[in-house]
């Protein structure tokens, strides 16, 4: 939606930036439609689609029945028939009922039809913990979808990236899962260009340059890692990489950094075992074996169910756990 005075003065939140990308792309491309539970008049439970129905009408911003498989499956059909659907799944926990349509259909059509049928769509999903939400509203399932060939998996951590990445995603000819870290939704504002710009899918970002150790993360954890950097001793120089795209992975940016630093800590909210951190650590030891001065470490969610909110802060990796792991890795 057009910018408010607050946005002009203070910048955009993550919610604002995504809303702006949707608004601008819907203006530009009449094939784009948004659909999902409560995305219309109510503007979505996080107000990400706020105002869009008023501008683009009931036919392009669609309140669907409470039916995630229905949303995903019919969005697949819309995409096949030449539309550019942007289904919203209200919380990452509710990807569950839509799993089959996403993994066994959206991801497979191009290859199973040898290019005759394609599914250009962007599945928007709020993700992650830290907002005192009820059960199944705080998970981080990105590894599941990164393990699914045919899908691209994105997770911006800043308003600026969110807008540019979402515009890329909508224009991408393949299905994209666009995870939005809900903890960042309104946590701060940032200056974001008003015009059209894209951030290429598959490019990580070096948030801070450093010599001694590489810190790799994505989503809300980028901010925890940034906090951790502030607590480290002056003479410790850490390179912080925000993955932005989880699949396909930007191997080169990671490798270049670790070849320089020789040490790496990976941070994510999802449970450690078989989380995406494992893929990164494995890739690093494959390619940087002779450069590594210490084993790659993972600071991740525990291998338990994400707890209800009284204990969620203990579950989520925080700046303290990150900086401790950094110091231990440096001491190795």
């Amino acid at each position, binding site marked *: 939606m057009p910018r408010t005075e607050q946005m002009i003065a203070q910048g955009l939140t993550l919610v604002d930036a995504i809303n702006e990308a949707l608004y601008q792309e819907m203006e530009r491309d009449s094939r784009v439609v948004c659909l999902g539970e409560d995305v219309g008049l109510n503007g979505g439970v996080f107000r990400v689609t706020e105002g869009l129905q008023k501008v683009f009408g009931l036919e392009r911003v669609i*309140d669907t*029945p*409470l*039916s995630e498989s229905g949303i995903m499956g019919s969005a697949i059909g819309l995409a096949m028939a030449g539309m550019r659907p942007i289904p919203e799944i209200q919380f990452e926990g509710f990807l569950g009922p839509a799993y089959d349509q996403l993994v066994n259909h959206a991801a497979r059509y191009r290859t199973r039809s040898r290019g005759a049928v394609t599914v250009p769509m962007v599945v928007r999903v709020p993700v992650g913990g830290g907002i005192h*939400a009820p059960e199944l509203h705080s998970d981080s399932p990105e590894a599941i979808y990164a393990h699914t060939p045919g899908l691209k998996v994105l997770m911006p951590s800043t308003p600026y990236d969110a807008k540019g990445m979402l515009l890329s995603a909508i224009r991408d000819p393949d299905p994209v899962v666009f995870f939005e870290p809900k903890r960042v939704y309104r946590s701060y504002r940032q200056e974001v260009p008003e015009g059209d710009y894209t951030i290429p899918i598959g490019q990580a970002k070096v948030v801070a340059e450093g010599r001694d150790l590489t810190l790799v993360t994505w989503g809300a954890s980028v901010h925890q890692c940034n906090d951790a950097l502030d607590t480290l001793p002056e003479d410790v120089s850490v390179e912080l990489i925000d993955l932005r795209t989880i699949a396909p992975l930007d191997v080169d940016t990671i490798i270049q950094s670790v070849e320089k630093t020789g040490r790496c800590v990976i941070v994510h909210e999802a449970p*450690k075992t078989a989380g995406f951190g494992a893929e990164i650590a494995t890739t690093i030891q494959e390619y940087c074996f002779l450069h590594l001065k210490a084993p790659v470490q993972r600071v991740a969610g525990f291998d338990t169910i994400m707890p209800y*909110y009284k204990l969620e802060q203990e579950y989520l990796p925080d700046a303290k756990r990150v900086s401790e792991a950094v110091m231990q890795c440096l001491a190795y």
Partner: protein
Amino acid sequence: MPLKTAYQAKVEYLQIMDENGVVDEKLAKDAMGDQDILELYQYMIKCRVLDETAFKLQRSKRMGTYPQNKGQEAAAIGAGFSLKRGTDFLVPCYRENAALWMHGLPMHYIFLHWMGDERGNQIPKGVCQLPLCIPIGTQMLHATGIAWAFKMRKEPRVAMTFFGDGATSEGDFHEAMNFASAFQIPCIFFCQNNQWAISVPREQQMNSATVAQKALAYDMPCIQVDGNDLLAVHKASRDFVERARSGGGPAFIEAVTYRLADHTTADDARRYRDSDEVEAWVGKDPIIRLRKYLTAKNLWNDAKQAALDEAAKQNATEVVRAAEGIERPAIADIFDYTYAELPRELALQKQTMRTSSLGQRPEQAGLSAPGVSANHE
């Protein structure tokens, strides 16, 4: 063009007590007696007060997001009252507090749940119910499975599951209904059609005239009742429960009611619905009509109401005290309840509260004790 009729069916609607508390005498004969009505009325008042209490707790940040029950008390409790405590199984969604309490759950459990504490789901032994269910539509299959076990073991027990109008759009609803029907499982499907699923009105959720007719797809007996009419809800529930208990198979009940409050405390319903509509339904409040009925029958008066209001407030205070008085949950819990036994890696995580291998075995890094932290912290 057709040659013959292959199937026909209809859905009937039941109301016994109208909005003014006037009952249809003929229909009322086989319904609940006045003593029960009196008892349940008091329950409903307590429930309403607890609902307001929870709302206030949320507003003062002493509770997380909370979904109010306001206006739906008759539906919940009329159905819940048809079950045998300690025998029949109740599988809730999250908007039937009164039914759960009636069926034996200590009231502060539900508060604990919404305070972000799993102990609110730790159903005491002997209380036959599952914890609240957040993902919509998913619990009906559990009820179906539980009732199926009763049938397999030839126990005269029934399961009842609650869900909203929105929940009927999920695939799992369909699969549960089909299983229950195909295997003639003693499971009662109770839909609280409160007209809204967050911001989506029932008519947009589905194109059908009633929710109840969804049961026709499975040749399952069904009825639509005035969900704000305690008597109608209870009579339909009781009859279907006893029918299921004696081997008659599953049934579907649509209780037509209304969500008088916001969807949850995180919601603002003024964004999407008219206050006129809400006002109209305020007049159909299940509590108001019961009071009218009881008053007309000389079973109730202002003094009794004042005493009840006071008791309900007192009760709420105790529930809040119980919910807030509990010690902080142990962090060990998140590990100890993942499996019956702790696997080794998880035990290590529990012990060190770390996932980094150097955090778990700092000796790897030439550091000494587990959990050692860098000296700058």
